[in-house]
């Protein structure tokens, strides 16, 4: 992550708090109140950064860090709020969201956002990049870091995802984890369920309540020896 324009915060004043995320998002939207539930990715992102991912602002360039790739780059406010809450950049940066001089766009750019592993926005790029990231780590003997990629259920329409899913299973990419945020927004749906697509390709897969932090944590941390893991997090259908 070079060429960043926002510096990490040195020493958070207080520990990250889920209930602070609404306020952080308000800094971006200008609205007075923002319920976390308004953002489909919020709870899963929170549990990942709070309890699962082994990465901090201090280790953001460490080859041995866990990686989180936001593939569904659309609607990144929850992501920015979580990164700010964890000190990857100061919350003042949030106020400029989407402006010409801000590092925070409506789709994230890894060269501008501290802590962002990829730039995204065009759908269907994150999962292939995550496959390559696992392959690159493995080629260097780095079998401990885990790689997470977040996609949306509608994003799964893009065929590139299915190239990656079909390869990662037989290749046994145990370090790879896909989090599918399912707000039932895919135009033609997924008859038979999203998890079954992953399972058919040899992944370990589970479907959980995307608002239940304990259920998410259990799903995120369950062992899956020799296989990549998919967690489908169901949230309220997109209105």
């Amino acid at each position, binding site marked *: 992550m*070079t060429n960043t324009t926002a510096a990490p915060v040195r020493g958070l004043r207080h520990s990250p708090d889920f209930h602070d995320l609404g306020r952080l998002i308000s800094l971006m939207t200008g609205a007075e109140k923002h319920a976390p539930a308004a953002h489909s990715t919020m709870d899963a992102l929170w549990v990942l950064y709070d309890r699962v991912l082994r990465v901090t602002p201090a280790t953001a360039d460490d*080859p041995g860090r866990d990686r989180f790739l936001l593939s569904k780059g659309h609607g990144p406010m929850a992501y920015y709020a979580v990164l700010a809450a964890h000190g990857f950049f100061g919350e003042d940066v949030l106020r400029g969201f989407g402006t010409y001089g801000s590092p925070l766009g409506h789709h994230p*750019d*890894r*060269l501008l956002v501290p802590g962002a*592993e*990829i*730039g995204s926005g*065009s759908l*269907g*790029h994150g*999962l*292939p*990049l*995550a*496959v*390559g*990231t*696992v*392959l*690159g*780590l*493995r*080629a*260097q003997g*780095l079998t401990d870091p885990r790689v997470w990629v977040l996609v949306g259920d509608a994003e799964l329409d893009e*065929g*590139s995802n299915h*190239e*990656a899913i*079909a*390869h990662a299973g037989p290749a046994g990419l145990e370090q790879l984890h896909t989090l599918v945020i399912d707000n039932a927004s895919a135009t033609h749906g997924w008859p038979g369920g999203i998890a079954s697509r992953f399972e058919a390709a040899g992944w370990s897969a589970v479907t959980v309540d995307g608002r239940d932090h304990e259920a998410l944590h259990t799903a995120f941390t369950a062992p899956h020896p020799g296989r990549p893991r998919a967690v489908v997090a169901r949230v309220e259908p997109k209105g």
Partner: protein
Amino acid sequence: MDTMRDRFIATTSQLLGEEPRLAVVLADISADGFAPARRAHPDRVINVGIREQLLIGAGAGMALTGMRPIVHTFASFLVERPFEQVKLDFGHQGVGGILVSAGGSYDWPAGGFTHMAPGDVALLDTLDGWTVHVPGHPDEAEALLREAVDGDDRVYVRLSLQANREARPVGGGTGFSVVREGRGGSVVAVGPMLDNVLAATEGLDVSVLYATTVRPFDAAGLRRAVGAGPGADVVLVEPYLAGTSTARANEALVELPHRVLGLGVGRAELRRYGRMDEHLAAHGLDPQGLRERITGFLRA
């Protein structure tokens, strides 16, 4: 003589033993050739199957972790089919890598238009930061590949079955080389077009330049060449889409009155099979066709 693709496989297989950062990503094409290397380096020779979007994305993902990926298949499936992956997964993510294509404009004419990629260099030309090598001989392909492996940037190496009889010194940032000096205009031959250009200009009072690295375009070298003669008349002979480098030549000569003729593969689909020499003739890229158009333009 081995082909450029043979040499690419042999050289890369050797370099895998010397460069721990080097990786190869394939989509079934050339998988047999790389089978011994894959056995020796199973974590660094990856075959994703017939999945070209994943091919590019996986190569770029490896680059994100600090590896130096070589990504290879036919030009049509490497550059054209997954073009947005090339644009975003390498360019927008800000990582480097080496794309090595085979098949060129019509290496397999009997295979038809689905396996022809005359537009690959023009397409890459819409992107920033790609070095484009078009070797004209297996020795040149090896030298340019070795140079690319040593770097960190984004490089496209366009391999073809079409080749010149003799190799020339290439690479090292030396730019276009002067093969023949004359006063009646300058002809730039790109990669495998050199032998036909030399045959076509036999006995003509023209300069012949040889180019294997076309991006960045050697503007200073072209200016030097035209500066030696009375007029700035330039003919570009490229083995891909005609006119691909015409704008670059115009930019190089912007301070001079000049004329540029861009020769190469025509845009119209021939819908013909057959052999490479028949396609070269059909596009006017055989010695006779080139001589007619070069003398007509230069009035040499």
